[in-house]
């Protein structure tokens, strides 16, 4: 490689964050031939024995891998255990031996047997099930390799970037022992086992680069950018230097916050909170999961309208919702119904409103246009089948609105049941508490839904009768105003009394100064944008619930926003540090 070679940038999918710089080690895939090889009758018994030996070798290899995994990762154990179950499936063994006895070579018997099962899975409705074809392929490849007496030359892969068609979790475990720097693969989903392991192990990975094993040659310098999802082959020295410093920064960042990813969101005295992420698009889900969120607390579905510039059809909605719910599964995802008003999206709103914030928005608009609302309910219900989906109603201010919406949801369920369409019959339903009316009536709402979620910005705007974008009055707007804090407190008490979960998904959830107050008030869940997750977790892990309770008692005595900040500020001063900016 000469310095004059200009770098080639390959675009893929970011699968595990981080930067890796090293020499490529290319594992060329040799896909086994599918030509049926026919045996002579006298060779059949030895062929059966050859298959049994290979199967035993595969089983032993997998059991050894599990042993190795015990020291490494519990994730990998369950993955390899399922391979072991496939390799020792009595039905499969019998069927392969039958094929050999019909005169086929062990290789073609194995290939044909797995092909049958792969075909069945490919035809499955559920894409998660279709992905399991990969499991069959991994096991099949191991058996074929054993039949051919070959093992991967793992020993060559140390201290390099592995480039391969796909990587099995087992391979990954061995590579990890050899301090592999990064992974580049041609295929694989971001939630494939290998990618999960790469993230667990903190090894940068980029997947989905077509023909990577042909484009990249062993020994060339490659940069794996697991943040941007790109691979640079034979980079220019300028690019290389840039990445060397990025690499250092990434390592420092990971050290600082990355260590918290797998840690519980727990106060120093053991009170646990649930930390979720707000997202506007499917790719943000991946970032949120990488940062260790425990669910998606808010999907702003009106982003679909922005994207399409119109109301999308049921099928278009289902595709988008499903993408999000599948990426997050088994974590729960809360979809909020279209929260539109004439200030955000005019279509479907009959005339100009003098006062959009007090006009036809949120649930009011949805009930005004039942055709649009019904389509969205049907799309959400269809998404809920076999996934962990919740539905949330925006801007509720009267009980009639909630009851009306619930009736519509019930009608949609009946319609889907009649049509034989699957959905989650017990999909949880919640309401946003964003108006003083909803906060004051929280006990009655809490008794009729599965969860409450407080939208702090709107609650402050409506409580203080202040448009925060109007600079003449903007200084009145503050979610820390005692009136707003009291309404939040009332809502939380109502939720506790009714035994339902209450969350905050507004800006306040991510506000550094508000964390202790929200913990003290008794919020169960906080939902913030993905980049804020780890910092918020860090803050929660550094406070004690007891101190937060004392703090809230003092805040409850405050009469002005300034006094509230003084209390929060004093807390800051006796526990040093902490950023009070948003």
């Amino acid at each position, binding site marked *: 490689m000469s310095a004059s070679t200009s770098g080639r940038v390959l675009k893929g999918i970011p699968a595990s964050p981080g930067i890796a710089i090293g020499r490529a080690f290319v594992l060329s895939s040799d896909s086994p031939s599918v030509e049926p090889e026919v045996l002579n009758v006298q060779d059949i018994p030895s062929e059966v024995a050859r298959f049994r030996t290979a199967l035993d070798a595969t089983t032993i290899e997998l059991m050894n891998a599990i042993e190795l995994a015990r020291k490494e990762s519990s994730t990998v154990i369950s993955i390899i255990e399922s391979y072991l179950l*496939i390799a020792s499936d009595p039905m499969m063994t019998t069927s392969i031996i039958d094929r050999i006895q019909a005169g086929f070579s062990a290789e073609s018997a194995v290939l044909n047997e797995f092909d049958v099962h792969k075909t069945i899975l490919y035809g499955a409705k559920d894409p998660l099930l279709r992905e399991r074809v990969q499991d069959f392929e991994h096991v099949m490849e191991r058996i074929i390799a054993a039949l051919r007496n070959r093992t991967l030359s793992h020993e060559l892969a140390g201290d390099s970037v592995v480039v391969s068609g796909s990587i099995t979790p087992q391979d990954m475990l061995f590579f990890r022992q050899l301090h592999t720097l990064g992974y580049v693969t041609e295929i694989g989903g971001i939630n494939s086992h290998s990618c999960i392991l790469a993230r667990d192990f903190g090894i940068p990975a980029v997947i989905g680069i077509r023909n990577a094993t042909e484009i990249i040659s062993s020994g060339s310098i490659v940069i794996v950018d697991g943040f941007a999802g790109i691979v640079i082959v034979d980079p220019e020295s300028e690019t290389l230097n840039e990445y060397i410093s990025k690499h250092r920064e990434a390592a420092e960042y990971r050290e600082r916050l990355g260590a918290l990813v797998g840690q519980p969101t727990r106060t120093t005295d053991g009170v646990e909170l649930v930390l979720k992420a707000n997202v506007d698009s499917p790719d943000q889900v991946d970032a949120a999961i990488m940062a260790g969120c425990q669910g998606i607390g808010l999907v702003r579905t009106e982003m679909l309208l922005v994207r399409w510039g119109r109301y999308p059809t049921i099928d278009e909605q289902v595709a988008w919702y499903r993408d999000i719910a599948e990426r997050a599964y088994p974590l729960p995802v809360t979809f909020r119904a279209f929260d539109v008003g004439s200030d955000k999206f005019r279509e479907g709103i009959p005339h100009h409103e003098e006062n959009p914030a007090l006009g036809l928005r949120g649930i009011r608009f949805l009930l005004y246009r039942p055709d649009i609302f019904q389509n969205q309910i049907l799309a959400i219900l269809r998404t809920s089948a076999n996934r962990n989906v919740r539905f949330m109603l925006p801007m509720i201010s009267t009980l009639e609105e909630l009851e009306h919406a619930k009736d519509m949801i019930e009608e949609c369920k009946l319609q889907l049941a009649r049509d034989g369409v699957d959905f989650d019959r017990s999909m949880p339903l919640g309401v946003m508490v964003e108006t003083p009316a909803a906060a004051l009536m929280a006990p009655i709402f809490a008794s009729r839904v599965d969860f409450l979620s407080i939208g702090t910005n709107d609650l402050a705007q409506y409580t203080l009768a202040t448009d925060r974008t109007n600079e003449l009055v903007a200084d009145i707007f503050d979610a820390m105003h005692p009136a707003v804090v009291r309404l939040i407190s009332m809502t939380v008490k109502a939720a506790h009394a009714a035994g339902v979960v209450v969350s905050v998904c507004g800006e306040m959830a991510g506000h550094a100064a508000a964390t202790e107050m929200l913990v003290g008030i008794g919020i169960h869940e906080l939902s913030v944008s993905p980049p804020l997750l780890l910092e918020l977790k860090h803050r929660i892990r550094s406070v004690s619930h007891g101190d937060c309770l004392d703090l809230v008692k003092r805040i409850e005595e405050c009469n002005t926003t300034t006094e509230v900040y003084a209390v929060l500020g004093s807390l800051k001063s006796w526990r040093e540090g902490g950023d009070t900016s948003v």
Partner: protein
Amino acid sequence: MITTTVIVANRAGVHTRPAAMLVKLAAPAAMLVKLAAKCKSDIYLIRDGFNINAKSIIGVMTLAAEQGCELGLLAEGADETEAVAAITELFSTGFGEQL
């Protein structure tokens, strides 16, 4: 011989093994097969007239049993009573998924 029916209660169904779930839960299909393999009896799951050997992971996966579907359960052998009880419990508790 004992025959009964079980309902798939968990959202994931018994067939899938969503990758992200691995950290927290063993795969429903793997849980079922491991339990069945411990029993001495022959155990079959029945769907739409198809009999699937519950000790075969491939069979259980290709059964494609989703949430809400009803499966026949048949056990025959020395420990058939215990086998049916244990498998019924696994289904009714949703394979450990939060119901």
